[in-house]
């Protein structure tokens, strides 16, 4: 019963068709939305709990949402309700005795007009909204809302995952910054040409840092690089620097001959040396003075100057010229060495600073309330203990101490009895231990919390391996080159293993850790500082006296050597324990 003119019932059915599509899409969107919200909420919670899975979970969330939207859109586009379905639905909802379905019958019959007329009457008497009503299921919408609310809430609430993410981001940024600094330094040194070897080492370090994601490992690498960059003998370097600078400054104020540098003046003096025009006696005296001033800092320069003075005394001008030229060469060499030492010292200082910035408290450590961290205390792998701090062999062995900037972490094995709030670790002076003799693997310290007496030198900590995961001293340490461990757990008095940040106080005239015949990681041999401090101080004093250093610079040198001779105070590690 197809008619050519659109009738009321046809318009009615068309509107019903449109509404049916919308209703279908609405209903589908609600169902799919519930599923998508469930997936998103689950993924968000999983990401909140497990940071490592965030990329996968984000992808899952994205796929879920996109698939939901795409599926609904695709259905909305492709869905075309069959006319008979629409007609039957209209019949069903309008109670029209199947009149709309009958209008779809093709062919003419005596009833055609009656059927159409009847269908039109029914269409006029009803609204399309009577046939298709929006299917809004509030409980489904509520579920969708709850799902996305959970996901949104999780985004703004710090969880285990977000904390780990923040730490990972911070670590990554720190390592990246350190790497950039190292690379920049390498470039500058390479351009200056002062120390190509150091530049190459720093380049290599930057590449190594590129492959490192563990901040503690990066700190270890930086510490190693700092040791490698450190001039082998600081006292000698200082003396050389003082001598070179003093000579340059002295000759600048009272030049021997025209010339910008001491070496140029020596060469000009040799060139202009003439018995007829030169006051040989005065020159001889001047050279002797200069020789004396260079004896401690630049022995070779001093010797050449002395030879020149002697040659002048013997009226051997050729020898004097040769000696002056030698003095110029020696001065240039010393100046170059001083410059290299200065660059290395600066670079070592920078690397140490970078290492310190990476040595944050290990992840998983919960700081007990009331524990104060001493300012300025730094004990990192590859470094020596602060002056005056020494360890009893077998007590605090390398690998049992994990350190961060200004923090000393001590792993305590055993149960801390109730009432004990402080554990002190005493370090008797003069009991250094050579790193080369340290057995691999930390020995668990037999800690008796509360029974440990200050100053008794009792071990206060068990070992902790370089991997950071072992506890109780069972992990393998590296002896002379302990790496930073990562103890985990919180301070719990009733547990067998307690990790607590301690406080290192004091710092007297103790031994350098690892002092002995064993080569240090940098390759240079080390001796106890008490054996060399006095000698170095005497050499420094002498160099200062014979140089033209500013008083402020002289004070710096003096303070440094005085600090080496200061008496060692005891090291105590107060540990505040919760609930004691």
């Amino acid at each position, binding site marked *: 019963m197809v008619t050519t003119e659109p009738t009321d019932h046809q318009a009615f059915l068309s509107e019903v068709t449109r509404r049916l599509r919308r209703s279908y899409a609405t209903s589908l969107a609600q169902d799919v939305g519930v599923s998508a919200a469930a997936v998103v909420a689950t993924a968000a919670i999983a990401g909140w709990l497990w940071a490592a899975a965030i990329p996968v979970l984000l992808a899952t969330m994205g796929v879920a949402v996109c698939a939901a939207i795409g599926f609904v859109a695709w259905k909305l586009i492709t869905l075309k309700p069959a006319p008979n*379905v629409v007609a039957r639905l209209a019949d069903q909802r309008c109670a029209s005795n199947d009149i709309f379905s009958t209008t779809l019958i093709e062919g003419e019959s005596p009833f055609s007009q009656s059927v159409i007329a009847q269908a039109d009457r029914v269409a006029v008497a009803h609204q399309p909204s009577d046939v298709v009503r929006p299917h809004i299921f509030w409980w489904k919408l509520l579920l969708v809302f709850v799902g996305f609310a959970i996901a949104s809430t999780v985004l703004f609430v710090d969880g285990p995952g977000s904390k780990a993410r923040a730490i990972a981001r911070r670590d990554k940024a720190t390592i990246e910054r350190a790497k950039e600094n190292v690379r920049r330094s390498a470039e500058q040194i390479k351009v200056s040409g002062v120390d190509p070897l150091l530049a190459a080492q720093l380049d290599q370090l930057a590449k190594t840092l590129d492959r490192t994601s563990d901040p503690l490992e990066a700190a270890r690498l930086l510490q190693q690089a700092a040791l490698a960059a450190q001039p082998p003998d600081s006292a000698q370097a200082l003396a050389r620097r003082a001598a070179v600078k003093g000579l340059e400054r002295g000759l600048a104020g009272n030049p021997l001959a025209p010339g910008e540098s001491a070496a140029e003046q020596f060469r000009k003096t040799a060139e202009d040396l003439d018995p007829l025009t030169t006051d040989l006696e005065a020159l001889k005296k001047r050279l002797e003075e200069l020789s004396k001033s260079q004896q401690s800092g630049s022995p070779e320069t001093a010797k050449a100057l002395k030879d020149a003075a002697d040659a002048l005394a013997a009226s051997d001008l050729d020898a004097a010229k040769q000696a002056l030229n030698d003095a110029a060469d020696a001065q240039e060499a010393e100046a170059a060495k001083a410059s290299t030492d200065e660059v290395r010292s600066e670079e070592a200082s920078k690397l140490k600073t970078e290492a310190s910035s990476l040595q944050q408290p290990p992840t998983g450590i919960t700081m007990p309330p009331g524990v104060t961290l001493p300012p300025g205390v730094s004990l990192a792998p590859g470094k020596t203990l602060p002056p005056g701090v020494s360890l009893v062999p077998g007590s605090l062995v390398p690998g049992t101490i994990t350190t961060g900037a200004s923090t000393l972490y001590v792993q305590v094995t055993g149960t801390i009895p109730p009432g004990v709030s402080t554990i002190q670790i005493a370090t008797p002076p003069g009991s250094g231990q050579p790193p080369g003799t340290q057995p691999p693997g930390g020995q668990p310290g037999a800690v008796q919390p509360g029974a440990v007496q200050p100053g008794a030198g009792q071990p206060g900590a068990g070992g902790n391996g370089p991997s950071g995961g072992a506890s109780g001293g069972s992990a393998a340490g590296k002896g002379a080159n302990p790496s930073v461990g990562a103890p985990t757990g919180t301070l719990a008095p009733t547990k067998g293993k307690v990790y607590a940040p301690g406080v290192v106080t004091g710092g007297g005239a103790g031994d350098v850790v690892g002092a002995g015949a064993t080569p240090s990681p940098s390759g240079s041999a080390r001796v106890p500082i008490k054996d060399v401090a006095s000698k170095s101080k005497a050499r420094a004093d002498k160099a200062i006296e014979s140089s033209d250093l500013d008083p402020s610079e002289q004070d710096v040198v003096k303070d440094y050597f005085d600090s080496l001779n200061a008496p060692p105070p005891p090291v105590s590690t107060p540990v505040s324990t919760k609930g004691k």
Partner: protein
Amino acid sequence: MQMNPDDCTALVHAIEQEVGKVIIGQQDLVHSVLLCLMAEGHALVEGVPGLGKTELLKALSIACGLSSSRVQFTPDLMPADITGTQVIEESSDGRRSFVFRPGPLFAGFVLADEINRATPKTQSALLEAMAERTITAAGATRPLPRPFLVMATQNPIEQEGTYPLPEAQLDRFMMKALVPYPAAGELAEILRRTTGGAKPTSNQIADAESLQAVVSMTRQVPVADHLVEHAVALVMATHPTNGSSPPRITKYVRVGSSPRGAQALILGAKAEALINGRPNVSAADIRSVAPSVLRHRLLTGYEAAADGVTTDQLVSDVLEAIPTPSVSGRGI
């Protein structure tokens, strides 16, 4: 004769009203017979004697202007007694020849009273007449007048000495109508009308031509496809081997409805729609005629008789198992 649907409806209502002058109550019976008349089917009426079955046929034949005959079926009734037979007839010139004398089936309305008392042979004589609307006798096939309606009656209580109608015979009946005992008020009215001096009669308001137009119009009532499928589903559900059959069908029914039953469903629904003045068949039409159409087409086993399960109950089960077709799905 040209009639529009409304004229047909009006005519049928007029016939119904005219019959109602004679028959008190029994609206369902009258309605079923009228549906059979419109759909050109036959009606099997089951009821105790004295409920007005013969009167109904008489009133209907008068109102419709059609001839009627009544055949009392007895065990000794022979097929020729109802179809007609050849007799020797002598002409005025003394010549003798065989002449066919039509039996009572050659009428518009035939009342086969107590049809189950005749032998199967005689019962079967009705088959051709009911299905083909022709009678073959003495080597010649003769058409029956149109419309042609057989209304057979059965007495449900006196089963001794009867011959239950065979399935093939039952299937020829479009509907099986049950004649209930009249209500007290109806019975009082019957008494008042039939025991007085004037006997109520109906008037002719139709003729064969107009009735044939109604029959033709009935067949043209449109039926939507899903309603045809619904009728098929109902019929299929009467089969015990069908998966959608209700449990009692599976248990008690031996043979379900034939395709002729499905045809009767649709035709009955069309007649129902037309008689109700609607231009199309609805699901309600199909379901309303389903009990009358299907009840005699379900052949039940002895278990049903033992458990007291009637075919009406089984048809109800089918209607319950196959609900009115509806559209469902997402967004609806």
